[in-house]
């Protein structure tokens, strides 16, 4: 039985565990503050806060309730706007009112919830982070500038928050009602969830793809959630390898100190990957298994030449991520087998990593083309390379030939130009809503160049590459 706290009330919904939190709170609990905009996680109107105990700490994250099954709420605290409303407006609600940050009002609650999440989380208090918290909220009216002004005010307020603050400060300052002080104890009182055997149940991670692709089917499906298995969310390093559990979310990766150390530009890269609420839900295993030819995290880890650990009952086997994709949406994955873990060799000091992505809208969009690379160098010489690109074939591509070609070459415009021609033989883009085939080929070349312009700024210039093209 799924059991969680909804606002200030313990609930045990007698509904299929695949029912979305959105439908539960709107149509079963009749809490109408949470709005429906798109039901695919792309507008943020249905954003709720989800509190969970992580290693003894109560941590809240924003999530889109339209993609979240009841199953994933088990043992957690789900907060809708009704759960933060008090007799007077919270400082966040007040800031939005005073800055004129609401027009038609339909998206507003999503912004209120996301910004409340920002006030509660441990991100540094500055405007940039406050705005990042609402990167998954769309306002069509569009009051972004006034919302930016409100976000700036909220980040100022958050500067007064004591470090390692408990909920007392948030309650005292009016951000939250007093009952939040007891939530931790109430969650701890829940008995540990019984381990469910996977059996024939459909495995779901964050639900961010399955609930977009087949919402009706999911609502009726018996689910087993990966997200509730803390053991599948770990990230650690052993013997020169980094191991990531399949249920680690994009946010788990983004905020992980080890990953940040290995990838100094990680936060910049991850800013290009979906939005805050989706990153809070989407798992790495889900991203691999949904087999999108353009999955950002797939492309990211392909360039690390990562390996997957697949498990069925008590049996495990490994498969290289680059061999995992056989054809469009076809995986080297047996029935009842699931992705358990991913690992890759910790890049040495002489290896540089980069991730590039271009789409119609820079943020919260699916790439026209994305690409990642890991380049090993000694002096001017490329000693080895891993290169990946998405959106150019039926599967995410590991660009083996181009990577091989680069090994042993000097970094200069001529070499990169030759590689940019070779790379075109490894892909077969089609024209679709994300761009014409011709555009995608040009974009691939440019993103390939972008890797080197970014990683080796002194060695090549855009002008030299453009001239190489013409010579």
């Amino acid at each position, binding site marked *: 039985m799924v059991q969680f706290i909804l606002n200030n009330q313990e609930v045990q919904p007698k509904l299929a565990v695949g029912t979305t939190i959105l439908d539960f709170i709107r149509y079963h609990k009749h809490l*109408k*503050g949470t*709005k*429906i*905009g*798109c*039901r*695919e996680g*792309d*507008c943020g*109107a249905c954003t709720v806060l989800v509190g969970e105990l992580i290693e003894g700490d109560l941590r809240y994250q924003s999530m889109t309730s339209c993609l979240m099954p009841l199953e994933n709420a088990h043992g957690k605290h789900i907060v809708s*706007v009704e759960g933060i409303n008090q007799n007077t*407006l919270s400082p*966040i*609600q007040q800031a939005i*009112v*005073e800055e*004129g940050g*609401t*027009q*038609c*009002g*339909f*998206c*507003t*609650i999503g912004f209120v919830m996301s910004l409340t999440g920002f006030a509660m989380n441990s991100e540094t208090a500055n405007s940039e982070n406050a*705005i990042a918290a*609402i*990167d998954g*909220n*769309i*306002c*069509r*009216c*569009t*009051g*972004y*500038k*006034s919302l930016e002004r409100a976000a700036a005010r909220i980040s100022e307020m958050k500067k007064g928050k004591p470090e390692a603050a408990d909920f007392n400060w948030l309650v005292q300052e009016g951000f939250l009602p007093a009952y939040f002080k007891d939530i931790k104890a109430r969650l701890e009182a829940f008995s540990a969830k019984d381990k469910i055997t996977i059996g024939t149940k459909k495995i779901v991670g964050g639900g961010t793809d399955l609930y*977009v692709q087949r919402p*009706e089917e999911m609502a009726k499906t018996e689910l087993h959630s990966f997200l509730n298995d803390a053991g599948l969310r770990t990230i650690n390093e052993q013997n020169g390898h980094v191991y990531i559990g399949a249920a680690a979310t994009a946010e788990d990766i983004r905020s992980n100190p080890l990953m940040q150390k290995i990838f100094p530009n990680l936060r910049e890269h991850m800013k290009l990957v979906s939005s805050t609420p989706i990153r809070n839900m989407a798992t790495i295993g889900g991203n691999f298994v949904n087999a999108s030819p353009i999955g950002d995290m797939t492309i990211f880890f392909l360039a690390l030449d990562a390996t997957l650990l697949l498990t069925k009952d008590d049996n495990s086997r490994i498969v290289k991520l680059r061999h995992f994709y056989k054809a469009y949406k076809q995986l080297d994955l047996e029935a009842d087998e699931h992705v358990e873990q991913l690992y890759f060799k910790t890049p040495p000091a002489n290896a540089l990593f980069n991730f590039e992505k*271009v789409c*119609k*809208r*820079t*943020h*919260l*969009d699916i790439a*026209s083309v994305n690409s990642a690379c890991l380049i090993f160098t000694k002096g001017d010489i490329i000693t080895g390379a891993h290169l990946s690109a998405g959106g150019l074939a039926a599967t995410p591509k590991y660009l083996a030939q181009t990577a091989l070609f680069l090994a042993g070459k000097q970094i200069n415009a001529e070499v990169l130009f030759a590689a940019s021609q070779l790379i075109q033989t490894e892909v077969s883009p089609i024209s679709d*809503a*994300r*761009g014409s085939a011709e*555009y995608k080929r*040009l*974009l691939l070349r*440019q993103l390939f160049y*972008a890797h080197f312009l970014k990683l080796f700024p002194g060695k090549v*210039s*855009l*002008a030299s590459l453009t001239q190489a093209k013409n010579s």
Partner: protein
Amino acid sequence: MIKNITKGKVDTSRNIDSHNHVTGRSIYVDDLPELQGTLYLAVFGSPVAHGHLRSVDLSAAEKLPGVFRIFTAKDIPGANQIGGIIPDEPLLADKEVHFHEMPIALVAAESEAIAMEAAKLITAEIDPLPVIIDPREAFAKGHISGSPRTFQLGDSNKAFAECAHIFEGKADSGGQEHLYIETQGAYAIPMENGSLRIASSTQGPTAVQRTIAGVLGIPMHKIEVDVTRLGGGFGGKEDQASAWGAMVALVAHLTNKPAKFVLHRMDDMRMTGKRNPYSSDYKIGLDKDYKIIAYEATFYQNSGAAADLSPAILERTLFHLNNSYYIPNVLATAYSCRTNLPPNTAFRGFGGPQGMFVIESAIHQAANTLGIDPIVIQEANLLKDGDVFPYGQIAKEAEAISCWEESKERFDLKKIREEVANFNANNEALKKGLALMPICFGISFTNTMMNNARALVHVYSDGSIGVSTGAVEMGQGVNTKMLQVAAHYFAVAPERIKIESTNTTRVANTSPTAASSTADLNGKALAHACTQILDRLKEVAASSLDTSADKITLKNETVYVDDIASDLQWEQLILSAFQQRVNLSAKGHYSTPTIHFDKTTEKGHPFAYHVYGTAIFVSTVDCIRGTYTFDAVKIVHDFGASMNRMIDLGQTEGGLVQGIGWMTMEEVIYDETGRLRSDALSTYKIPDIYAVPKEIDVHFLKTDGSDMALFKSKAVGEPPLLYGVGAYFSVINAVRAFNPNWMPEFYDAPITPEKVLMGLYAI
């Protein structure tokens, strides 16, 4: 005993709805409590874009448990017709289907999930017919809605002979999905005597009422349409809310059960029309001083499969063909071309932006070919008082030049220009583009008969006030403005006033909330109603204070005699009036004076006034990746004497960003079979918080405002969207800074990252 109100709770300098918005207490259609027995609807839409409908098989769907009944065209008791201007659009397809997802059958079931599942079990036998999605192809085949329209001024043919420079070209602008975050929806409740009460998310309650009456074949007085608020409209719910209203009404009427239909996002995107795409040809002639002497244009409007509002939109394209410029010789013809797309419709700007994009393209081509900055041509041709518009109206209180000059000075255009040039000289992979966009927009419905409104005011015996108008609140803050009007006339605290829902039984025969005119029309009608009650109250006060009514004024809830405060307070005054059997209710009416337009000559004075402004755009293009950002948009805008700066600023920033979206990332894509490819938020991108310009600086031009505007505060809904056109040209200019040899083959908005990258590396 009269209870005192809590003063100070409502601040009319801000949107009065904002408290409810931030706490989630505002009520939209889907938030209404549902009645027992409510049926939920889903539509079976045509799987092809054009064809003869042979038969529909409902058998499998009807067998699904929980399905109550399925309706098709033959179930419609009245006229199967929802066309607003031209009766050319059936509610449910009968003999032919004209666009992909055109509604064919309507499922009513016990739950939404069952209704949707049942709709998927319906099949139709359709003999396909050729599909046309391109307006020029439709034109070539003679598929035109209504009559072509031609605006003429002077003699362009003769004038071209005298021009030093002549340029011809083509300019296309794409559609735009409204993407109101609240999807279309309606909820019908059967009442006694065959009447219906309908909650609708519509900008046009009367249009919904009239449509339902026609579809059901019953009089309008049996249909009550009520609108509390909209979660966005932008024109998409002006005419296109009627179909869903008619569907719930049809089901409620035929089953005597409540019926509800709130569209899922993808269904909404696939079934509803968008901003009309246009393809246009232009010819522009300049003299040696870059004065535009002659301009000719042919506009091919893509109307989609039915006329909807397209004929009126077409007209406004012609009204704005010259944007903010005086052109003495003009010849322009516009065709509404019928294609197999969902019927396209109103979208903020209503054809105006599409017309302005063409003249701006013509100027850009002329300037770039001549090797000068387009700013030179723009500046040389700005409208001034006394200039005649191509439709015969004489420019009065024109602020084109004052906005332009003020923007140049205030924002130091010279410095911006230098900074852009320096940046481009010193940066290899990033290039900046500068563009100016002056705007001019006519305020009034171009259909003169629509320029009227009514208001109903009740002052209750406890001194509280209820205000009903025909204005629909959809985020533009009209409730706040209406409250300001009532508070001003009665001189009472805003807490005393309640703005009621928009309801066809309280205010009848309304024009839709559209054309930026709603606050003007309804506000002036409201002022009329308030004044009537106020005059009666003054008589009561005069008799009570033993003076004459002309010496009475109301200030701050107190009666003043000769500007001296008396002891008589608002609540006491109202109680006295009530006890003296004075009528404390009034109906106000307003119809815009002086406007007229003759469609036979295409001349007249269609607009109460014009709104002007100038925007300066600076964009930065990433020349490696083909992406772009907007550094700044600096605007001097003619608000008149703004009655609510916060709301007007919100409208300006919001309209601007919507306009930028239309010109940049928003790409409506139909494939050759007429199927919408960009049918979700994942494939159709509107601006997010990172896509807005880093800086938006809006300066309110100091003017007296127009007497034709409510409190001299000019209409603000649509004009700011027009600035968006400048985004297109600033990006084009940045691409040309990287690749000077490139000019677009023709002007083709939106300027997506794809077009930018192809331009950057075009040989």
